[in-house]
């Protein structure tokens, strides 16, 4: 960002007097509670798959994610998830349901431009950067881990 001039600074000070800041602490508490509830539901789904299907604790993750994203899809389609998001903030954005919501909301939004250029082209408009930086971060972490193992730092 460019450096502010003195007059810009003085105006920004005036804005700050009148601005309504995000209630950060309250938002954190809401995010904690809602995020926790979403994760508890996810855990219940995992336990369900382990108890009633031939999954183990390691393999139950994939069907659980599928179920959670499916629920997020329904909530997004029925117009509930964006309201939950306004209330919960990071609490509903960080779990995998939030990732699902970002893909599905973009897919719904661009349906009017057709399936190929609309839905296909815009589906990952928001989630695309999550995937890119997720993969890049995983790549570098894997290199660091490999090097540490090679040097004998890690077991």
């Amino acid at each position, binding site marked *: 960002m460019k450096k502010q001039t003195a007059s*810009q600074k003085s*105006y920004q000070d*005036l804005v700050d007097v009148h601005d309504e800041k995000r209630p950060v602490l309250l938002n954190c508490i809401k995010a904690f509670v809602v995020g926790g509830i979403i994760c508890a539901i996810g855990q219940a789904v995992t336990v369900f798959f382990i108890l009633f299907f031939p999954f183990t604790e390691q393999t139950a993750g994939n069907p659980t994610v599928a179920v959670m994203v499916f629920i997020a899809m329904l909530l997004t389609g029925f117009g509930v998830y964006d309201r939950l998001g306004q209330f919960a903030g990071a609490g509903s954005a960080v779990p995998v349901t939030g990732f699902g919501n970002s893909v599905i909301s973009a897919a719904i939004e661009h349906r*009017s431009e057709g399936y190929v250029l609309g839905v296909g082209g815009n589906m990952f*408009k928001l989630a695309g950067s999550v995937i890119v930086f997720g993969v890049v971060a995983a790549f570098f972490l894997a290199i660091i881990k490999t090097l540490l193992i090679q040097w004998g730092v890690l077991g």
Partner: protein
Amino acid sequence: MTQGMTWTFTNKPAILSTGVIGGPFEKKSPFADLFDGCEDKLWMNEDSFEKANRHIIERAIDTVIGKMSLQPTAIDALLMGDLINQMTPTSLAARTLAAPYLGLFSACATSMQGLALSAALVDGGFCKTVLTGASSHNAAVEKQFRYPTEYGGQKPPSAQWTVTGSGVAIVGQETPQHPALAFIEKATIGKVIDRGTNDPFNMGAAMAPAATDVIDRHFQDTNQNPSDYDVIVTGDLALIGHRITEDLLNSKGWTFKEGQFLDCGKMMYVESAGVQAGASGPACSAMMIYSHFLNELKRGKIKKMLAVATGALLSPLTSQQSETIPSIAHAVALSGPTQNSPQGKEG
């Protein structure tokens, strides 16, 4: 005639009729009874939100033409705009009406840009009947400027809710069949002002200096002060921007009585509507001024008002490229029909 940089109209251009249509959310507005109608669905039986935006413009145009029982061919010029890329909803509505068309863009200040220009065209004798207005569609604007409508992102308390709706007015000279709802007295055209704010979720703060500048220049040009107006109403500064503007104007020596300095963005919705700081969008000022405020002028509850529409001239591209938000505001002075033309006087 001009006073400083303010246009003063001498041939009494007037607002003759209006058409105001809201969306489903606007139905719950405290002023919904004064609108000509509201749509029940955001889709409006169209297959995209952009087409719905076109639909609501067409419906407002049909309403105003129907009220005055005009032929569409009697419209000498159509001066309108909206927020969508290249203003296609308005252009497509203009295709339907097939009147000489000038597309306007001042973002949310388009309503008063259109009214000022229409008054000038009528005053100068170039047009008899001008149709002007502005519109916006919440979901179409969210899609273009922010996130998909169903995306669960959290908006800060300074964010505003874009109004779905369309407000249009017919400007011409008063006749016995078509008495004036209000006369357009003066107009001050805004300059683009940028005080360096760059938060697209706080447009009130970005637009406040532009509103302040145009109001200040209007008073100075015309040797008036706030007491010359019963009401000074801004477009969509909302809670935060309106407070800043009042502060800035106070520091320039202009003070207001209680209830004299208002904002359409604060009035459009009830407080419990969950719209953060208030309403925004070109339709916000167009709908409020062409329904509630004209009604007050017509009934004589207010005699003179200064209508100031405010617009943030940003695009998603400029804001992603860390450009600050340039803003504009246009002011139009309106007066009620009673003081200017005694009843029965030939228009």
